[in-house]
Every structure is written in C-alpha cells, then in structure tokens.
C-alpha cells in the first residue's frame, strides 16, 4: 500500500465542491453565471451582475504561465520537493477570468518562464482529492 499523503489537502466547501468534483473526474471546471461571465475563485454570487444562478462548465486543459515563484525554502511537508515552481496559470478560453495557482513540473525549474504554454494533469493524492498540476506542452 502506498504511503499516506502527508501534505496539506483542500477541504471542499459548498462553493468549491464543484471544482474539486471536477478534478476528481480529471476535468477543470469553473462557474459560468447566467449572465455568461466565468468567475474564479468559486463563490455563490456573480461579482459582475450579482446573480446567484450559475452552472459548472468544463474548461480547456491548456493555459499560459503569467507569473511564477521558485520555492527554495519551505519548512513543511514540501521540503523533499525543493526547489519547486508555483505559478499562476491563465486558462485558455476563459477571457482572462480563470487564473489558477498550481505547480509546473516535468522540467527544470529554470525552464519555467512567463509565457510558457502548459497542460493540466491530475495528481490523485487521496481517494477524494485530485490536485490539478501542469506540465509544459
């Protein structure tokens, strides 16, 4: 049996369950308001028209790095991963509205730059939680 996952895990709530359910099904999802506008992070109300009506929609699997950090110093369960990249990834086809913070892996940290095109994959860390992470295309 695999070692139990020791890193911090997200606890889905009423607003975010739809996103984490999507990740479990290996799909990126975000809320689209009845007014047509996508939003991120998940919340009950549309920040543009203040409607409570929305649907979870599937997003493209690709995006672009718009900012990044390389973590060299960390005292928690991530110590073994150092150095690692955390990037803001603007998901394609979301009109600039969905910007996910996640890890870009699979290449040396110095090869991750702003503008890099990436594709999502899902890291099934527990039976319930899959973390969306990215690799260069």
């Amino acid at each position: 049996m695999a070692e139990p996952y020791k890193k911090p895990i997200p606890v889905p709530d009423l607003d975010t369950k739809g996103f984490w359910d999507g990740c479990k099904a290996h799909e990126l999802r975000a809320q689209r308001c009845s007014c047509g506008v996508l939003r991120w992070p998940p919340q009950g109300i549309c920040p543009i028209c203040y409607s409570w009506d929305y649907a979870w929609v599937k997003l493209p699997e690709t995006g672009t790095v718009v900012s990044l950090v390389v973590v060299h110093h960390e005292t928690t369960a991530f110590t073994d991963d150092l150095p690692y990249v955390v990037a803001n990834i603007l998901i394609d086809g979301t009109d600039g509205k969905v910007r996910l913070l996640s890890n870009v892996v699979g290449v040396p940290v110095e090869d991750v730059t702003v503008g890099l095109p990436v594709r999502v994959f899902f890291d099934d860390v527990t039976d319930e939680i899959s973390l969306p992470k990215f690799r260069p295309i």
Partner: protein
Amino acid sequence: MPEQPIKDRTAIVGIGHTRFSRSSDTSVGDLAIQASIAAVRDAGLEVQDIDGVVSYFHEHMNTMHPRVLAKTLKLKECNFQVMADAGGSWTGSAVLTAVMAIHAGICKNVLVYRAVNSFSNRGRERPPREIVGEDQFSVPFGSRHPAANFGQCATAHMARFGTTTLDFAHLAVTQRRHAALNEKAIMRAPMTIEDHQNSRWIIYPFRLFDCCQQNDGAVAIVVTSIEHARDLPHAPISIMAGVGGFGDAASQEELWETNGARIAPHLYAGAGVTAKDVSFAELYDPFTYMCLTHIEDFGLVKKGEVGGWVSAGKNALDGEVPVNTHGGLLSEAHIHGLNHVLEAVQQLRPEGVRDDLCQGAHTFDRATCRQVRNPEIGLVCGEGGGSAILLRRA
C-alpha cells in the same frame, strides 16, 4: 473628488516605542504597555486621558487586545475601541480610525499601538493539514509563505516592465544605508549590491535580503484634535487625509499593480495635493518588490519606471523622494508598519529625528544624519496599498 472634512482636524501628538530586537524577554502585552505609556508621556498626557484604543493583527491574534490593555491600565473612560484582523494593509487605517473617532466627537485622545513577539514566538504556529477557505487554492500546492504570494506579483511586474532583481538590490541597499543611521534599527551592518545578489534564494525572485525581518517590539502613537494638540508639548503633526478599504497583495485586475493605484487619487484629492507635493514616503516593504510597486502606484514615479528610479538613488535621503528613511521593515524592524508612522512623525517634527547619529543639530551629513531636508508632507502606506495617510506639520 473633494477634500476630506477631516483634513488637518486631528494630529499625532505622541510617539513611543520599545527596543526592537530578536529577544524582548517579555510578554507581548508588556511591550504594548511600554510603548503606549511612552507615547502618552511624549504627548504630555496622562494615561487616564486616553479614551480610545486601536490595534490590529494578521490572522493569528498575537498581540494585546485593546480591551485587555484598557483593563490593564484601568482606563476610566474608553469610548471606542477597535481590534482589526487586517494585517499590514491596515497601517494607514489604524491612524485613520483614531482620526475618525476624534473628528466624530466620540473620543478625545486615541491610542494606536502594535506589539509583536514575532521572533521569540517563531515556529510556534503549526500549519494545519486540512486547508479551508481561499487557502485551499494555494497551500496544497506548496504556496504558503508570504514571499510565495507576493513573489507572483513581482515576476508579473518583471515580465511586463523589465524590472530585475538588481533593481531589488538597489532598494535594499539604500534602505540599509538609512538603517545604519538609525539607532533603533536591527539590521545596520553595511550591505552592498553584491551582498544582496549573493544572498541565498528564499523564494525566487526573492533572496534573503529581499525579505523583511521577524522581530520583537512595539510602537504606539497618540492622536488628538488639532485644537487640543496646540496645547501639548510637541509641534502637532496633522493628518491631511486618509483612505483604507483594501487588503490583498495585488489589485483585482492585474498582478503587477497594488490597490495603491486605486486609493491614491482619493488620498491626494482628499488632502488637496498631488503626488508631486510628497516630500518623503514611508511605504510598506515586507519584500523589496512591494515597496517598488508602492512607489509607482502612489504616483511618485511613472508605472513601470521604478527600477531605474531606485537604481539612480532617487529614493535616498537626498533623492527626489526619500523612501523608508528609517530602513523600513527590511532593515529597521517589522512592527506591522506602525514604525513607518513613527518615522514620518519624527521626520516632520521641527526638531527632526531623535535617534540618528547626529550630536545636537542636524548636519545632513549622510555619515551621521538621516533627517530629510525641510520635509513638508509625508506619505505612509500599508501593505498592498490597502490604506494610506498623508501627514504634515500643522
């Protein structure tokens, strides 16, 4: 936008602080009390003259609550108290809260303080494993430290405007020079550009010398009405205007911009001045980059041009607009920005700063003197440009 009705109606009349250190050897409550009593005495008041108490913290209640301070000092009248969980964004708002309570006639003399034992208590908070709220989209990916949060803003700025870590170095070195002239600063050893560039990575794009300190200490100020201020020992330093209301690292629109860009027009209009009237600025600087973007977002230099501006030393004591004349959070101490207010008041008082290396009158010799020449208006802002105030000699 009209001038604010509070303009020059209140003033900072007392300032106090404890020793800034990495071992206070006392409780955070005692630090709060020591700084508060020092500020009350500096104002020429008695403890029982205080009838309003304001403080703030960030997420973890790690300081003395105003309710407890009022009880400890057995204040007979306490007409208003506020404890805000707003972090460094609240530096300006802390002062503004006192101003509003006084201008509204609810309080006469308001004490504002911030006390921390951040170094002595470091590592006591164990991060939880189950992550709720907005942190569920950052912490599970190993983004927990503030440097990881603000670093995203920095690399977005670097990509858009060509800002470099060498620009960060110039800011850090200039502020260290200021700290060398400050007896209460913790980090006073000389630092070169090479020292900065050779310091180890913490979280790229931030090296060790891009990051502020964790330390112990407290700062307190006393605010009163301008009428009352004129009867007190120190020349009053009036609050011209203040704006607060935001708390995030970056604006909602762009990572490379803070909410300072949103509040600055209201701040300057509220005071009836422009950015060109600012003599010096004490700008929140948990990391070098954040101070750089504040310099831009409060209009002291055009957006995108701050790298060249600090590399040319325009933020030095004799520069175009001296910035963080005490050394800032980076080199003086991290008292959640209330030490920025303390420095601004010292710079504006007729006698000037009291804890530089000048013996007697200010010489403006930068080997000993950190007093800015003839300052008229000082700008102070909190983290992410979340709040800001303008001060001047009344």
